[in-house]
């Protein structure tokens, strides 16, 4: 890294190596990000007619019943999907690493939904849920409970395969002699799993919990395509979409009217702070429990 031989000549090529990427990065990320923070303190239709209003957008955002509902909905959804996805993905990965026949084929099938886009997945599952619920003469968007669990099933079906791949990689990295030593010491399969395998799997568990957590908070396409937030009810005089998660709530707030643009951007800033805080907290919390194998 300290090689002058390499460093000096490259620096002269700055306009070729860095400038195009950096310029696009500014257009696609830095400028919209900064402008987004500024506009969250403004009333605006487009950025040209922005008027500074201080924190009133944030007050409006926090007192919006729809936003509060979306927050608790997202938190509940995240808890349920983190547990469900990680337990099942770990169990499947554990089973597939026990030298069973056709393990590769199973792995291929479980991973497959990850390649299909969220919008298409949402459409497929809304058709299936509606067909099932028709047997009970109801439909998916009739009840918020159906929509919530429907989304849980969809996301589990999609992400289990992804987390399974990470768990399989983790399981295969555990040295064989650790398991052998446990067996020689007379440990049962269950004891080996809880005392040897799982402690050694903490790095993978960290990654997967972190991924499922942020995925749940950022979920948008599947939410939009499955229920679009329906059904909605009137709560304290405001329309609340019962199956809406945070990301979709921000999006639909923006589409209410131009009076809501500022509040939508304020919600987006709050949402960003939340996702960033979760990501950092989760990483530091679980990293400390890792075993140095």
């Amino acid at each position, binding site marked *: *890294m300290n*090689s002058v*031989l*390499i*460093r000096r*000549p*490259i620096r*002269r090529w700055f306009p070729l*190596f*860095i400038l195009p*990427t950096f310029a696009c*990065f*500014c*257009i*696609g*990320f830095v*400028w*919209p*990000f900064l*402008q*987004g923070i500024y*506009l969250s303190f403004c009333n605006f239709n*487009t950025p040209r007619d922005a008027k500074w209003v201080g924190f009133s957008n944030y007050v409006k955002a926090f007192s919006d019943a729809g936003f509060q509902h979306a927050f608790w909905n997202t938190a509940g959804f995240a808890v349920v999907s983190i547990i469900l996805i990680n337990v099942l993905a770990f169990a*499947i990965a554990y089973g597939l690493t026990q030298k*069973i*026949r*056709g393990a590769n084929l*199973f*792995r291929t*099938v*479980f991973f*497959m939904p990850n*390649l299909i*886009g*969220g*919008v298409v997945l949402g*459409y*497929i599952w809304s*058709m*299936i849920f509606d*067909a099932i619920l*028709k047997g009970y003469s109801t439909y998916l968007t009739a009840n918020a409970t159906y929509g919530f669990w429907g989304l849980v099933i969809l996301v589990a*079906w999609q992400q289990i395969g992804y987390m399974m*791949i*990470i768990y399989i990689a983790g399981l295969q990295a555990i040295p064989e002699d650790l398991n052998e030593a446990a067996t020689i010491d007379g440990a049962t399969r269950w004891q080996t799993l809880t005392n040897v395998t799982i402690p050694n799997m903490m790095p993978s568990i960290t990654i997967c919990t972190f*991924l499922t957590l942020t995925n749940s908070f*950022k979920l*948008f*396409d599947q939410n939009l*395509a499955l229920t679009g937030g329906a059904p909605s009810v009137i709560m304290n005089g405001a329309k609340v979409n019962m199956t809406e998660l*945070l*990301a979709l709530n*921000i*999006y639909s707030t923006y589409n209410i009217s131009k009076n809501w643009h500022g509040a*939508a*951007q304020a919600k*987006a*800033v709050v*949402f960003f702070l939340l*996702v960033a805080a979760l990501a950092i907290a989760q990483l530091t919390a679980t990293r400390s429990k890792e075993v140095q194998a």
Partner: protein
Amino acid sequence: MMKPKSRYSTLSTIVTVVFIALCLVWIVPVLEVLVNSFKTNAAVNTNAFALPTAESFVGFDNYVKGMTFGNYPFLKSVGFSLFITVVSVVLILLFTSMSAWYIARVNSGFAKFFYYLCLFSMIVPFQMVMFTLTFTADQLKLNTPWTIPIVYLGFGAGLAIFMFVGFVKSLPLEIEEAAAIDGCGPVRTFFSVVLPMLKPTLISVGILEVMWVWNDYLLPYLVLDRTKYMTIPIHVQYLKGSYGSVDLGATMAVIMLSIIPIIIVYIFCQKHIIKGVAAGAVKG
């Protein structure tokens, strides 16, 4: 000696049977779409789980209908999706790998600043920038399929640079020094020495980016002029949005057409795809 062995094999048979059952759960939703794509609209509506009968079977009619369904030719959406994905991913791979090499080797104040900005951008959700990015893209005329790859390069640069920098740092410096001594300039060193060594990461990053851009809905939906340009996810959501009058059989055919190419590619490159995705997760 025989007893534990036979117990083990019954256990593994049970596990195998459980996995076969689970696999069916995973395949049925897609099979369901396939079956329904051969049925009449009325038949899908009354019982989506029934197999087509002589009356409800329509052959490939739905596929023919689906091509022009919703007043927008489906093949046009496929074309835009293909173009945007290919150009964006090539741009991302080329420019971010160059920048990553610069960042890893130069290590100046600016390089570090850019690198930390990239890390930062990875934790920023798209909703934070979606409205303002739409305005910016509109103003700079980046709202067409021909220019939207620039937006993708900008918003996708963070993860790609992060992955490339990690890999470049693990490459031995001596090879590049030898090239420099032999009279290679930085451009030639990069393209004929560094880039070939980056191949495994190029494949991993490439797969991650293809999966992102191909399936992305919100960014092109907001940025592109939707009356003129649609991509496959926008097309599918557009069909769903106009329900009531929607022809379910034809919609299922459209969905099937959008899934088939992905599954074919997956069957042929599944090892690379799974490895690429796992690499992205472990590092990201």
